[in-house]
């Protein structure tokens, strides 16, 4: 798990109480307006959202609804124009760059639609990158990266560059990289968007397995088949939350024995 943020309650009792009550993520009145053209373009309009630890939240909405913007703000990749963002009860908006970088590094893991691996690095080195910024020693970095890649069935691909890997393999490397520093929250933006269906299901099964192990997940998608792997559905339209409900067990897609499957891969 990620390191605790700096503002923590003073006593163990207070900590326990806060853990029970404090959501992992709390957004209040989050508004994002882009000023890149003469006319301001609102992307998010007063979003209120709480995410509890261990949730698997699918964010759906049509193009331009603000899904990706919400994900960027959740991941501290962008700053809201207005509103308040609390992570484990600590105000994130207004933190200095150094602190935001530390939060991104220790608390969040990102999985992108186009994998976003460094083309000049091997799979192993790609997984090591976040640990470099966390100051992990080289031997420990290597050990952790190998373990993660082995877990996702990539032990035979460690020294391969992204161009030598299939889309599914690249995305599994990206997931391994996202988990490198033991994050609190995994953020995925259309994680299966560039993959054929079979590989897409494989990736979603991995994410579901991670959630079953206690990882909090937020997946942005416009595809219900992908969203249905989650436990909660947040729907956006025109930068506003228009729906927020649990996904019923009968609606939910459940992973097959993903771990066994991956271990049997050549």
């Amino acid at each position: 798990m990620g390191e605790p943020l700096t503002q923590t309650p003073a006593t163990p009792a207070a900590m326990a109480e806060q853990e029970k009550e404090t959501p992992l993520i709390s957004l209040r009145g989050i508004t994002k307006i882009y000023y890149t053209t003469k006319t301001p373009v609102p992307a998010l309009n007063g979003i209120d959202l709480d995410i509890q630890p261990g949730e698997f939240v699918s964010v759906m909405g049509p193009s331009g609804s603000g899904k990706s913007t919400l994900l960027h703000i959740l991941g501290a990749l962008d700053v809201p124009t207005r509103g308040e963002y609390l992570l484990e009860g600590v105000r994130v908006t207004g933190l200095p760059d150094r602190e935001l970088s530390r939060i991104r590094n220790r608390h969040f893991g990102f999985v992108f639609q186009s994998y976003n691996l460094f083309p000049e690095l091997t799979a192993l080195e790609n997984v090591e990158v976040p640990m470099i910024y966390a100051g992990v020693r080289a031997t420990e970095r290597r050990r952790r990266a190998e373990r993660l890649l082995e877990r996702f069935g990539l032990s035979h691909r460690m020294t391969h560059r992204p161009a030598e890997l299939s889309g599914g393999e690249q995305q599994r490397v990206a997931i391994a990289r996202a988990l490198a520093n033991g994050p609190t929250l995994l953020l995925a933006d259309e994680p299966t968007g560039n993959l054929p269906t079979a590989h897409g299901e494989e990736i979603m099964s991995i994410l579901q397995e991670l959630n079953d192990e206690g990882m909090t997940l937020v997946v942005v998608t416009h595809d219900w088949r992908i969203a249905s792997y989650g436990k909660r559905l947040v729907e956006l339209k025109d930068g506003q939350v228009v729906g927020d409900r649990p996904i019923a067990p009968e609606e939910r897609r459940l992973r097959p024995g993903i771990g066994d499957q991956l271990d049997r891969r050549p």
Partner: protein
Amino acid sequence: MHSWAVRRLARRWWNLLAVLQVAAGVAAITAIGSTVLPVLWQGDDGPQILTVRYERELNEPGIGKVISIEPIFRYEDLELLKSELPGVVAAAEAPESAYQVEVEVEGRRYIVQRVARVGPDYLKLLGVSPVEGSFFSDDDFRQAAADPSGTVKSVVISQELARVLFGNEPATGKTITLPTRAGKTELAGAASSFAHGSVQVIGVVEMPPVRDRYAFFEVYADLLFPSPRAVGGSGTTAAGTGTFYVRAKTGDIEKVRREIIATLTPLIRQREAEEPVPGGGVGAQPLQPPQPPRPSQPPPGEIRVETPQAWAVEAATTGGLYLGSMAMIALIVSGIALFTVTLVNLAEQRHSIGLRRALGASRGSILRETVGEAIVLAGTGGVLGVALSEPVGRFLLQTLLWTARSPLASSSPWRLSAYFDLRAAALGLLLALVVGVVAVLYPGWESSRLQPVEAFRDGR
């Protein structure tokens, strides 16, 4: 700085241009610095050599005041100093010499930096001795005096030249040819006087170390002939000289300097009084209080005794400033190249920077990585420049000779470029790194200010 940053740099061919630009600047700095800096750094720690000069300030019509160096010293003055002053080890006049002289050995042509006719005290003055064979005998000097036009067939060479011409084989007894073809012998100096045809090496001398050679600027040579001006074993000069060199015993060089002036001044005053000094007028009376000069009478001259260090430092400072500024301009241009290349790299890496920021890189990390990459580029260029400084110097001189249609252009030059000095190389490398870092600070800082999401949006 990780190895993957180097891999990223290697993927972009234009980085090579910046590296080559830096290499050119550092090569220039190293080549110039290797010549100039040892002189400046050595200070007063050089060989105990003094130059003794007679100078007279004349008022030339239409020109104004000029310093005239006149041949007032005689050979017996040099003998007197050696016998009377215990601090004087050797005294010798400046040898007659020529530069960049072409020689042939077994059909191969070389350029010898300096050829000189030297007297019997030459080796003592330099503080060296033969490592092979012997120095010139009295007979050699007598033969040279008997036929100054060039029948002498014996030469002594420096160990450095011996190595170039004959490798590890003994040089004594080997033949060197100084072509007699008109206009083919040398680049500068008294050409025909050294066109001896074939000569035989009778000895090899280990010359003073490179760092000391500035002290022997007018004395040092690689190929030596016996001087016809020194006759017999004791030798006498056929004519006077205006400058000679003294090697002092290690110790109080200042005391030796004062003693030389005190010993020679009465003699000079006497000669000024006895003989009309070249340039007109009647000399001043010896040992008399100074009298106001009459328009027709030149003022009394002055004996100047100096260490070559002072002169060398002045020459090195002037030359170093002039050439060093040009080399610095080359290095600054390489800084501009690094700046441009970094801008292009950062534009290409915009997406990668956004990704690194998303994975936890702070602004400081991005700036450090950019500066690190500049250090790799500048450092690579610097090392390349240091390695190339000597061959590039040779190539440039060869090109210069070719452009000037010099017949020497086809010869194999040796020792044509500046000496290599490790400290000058280190300075060149350091300057390259400083220029590299300064050049990329601004683009690096600009890139580090990107919000991660902006870089993602704009990047490829």
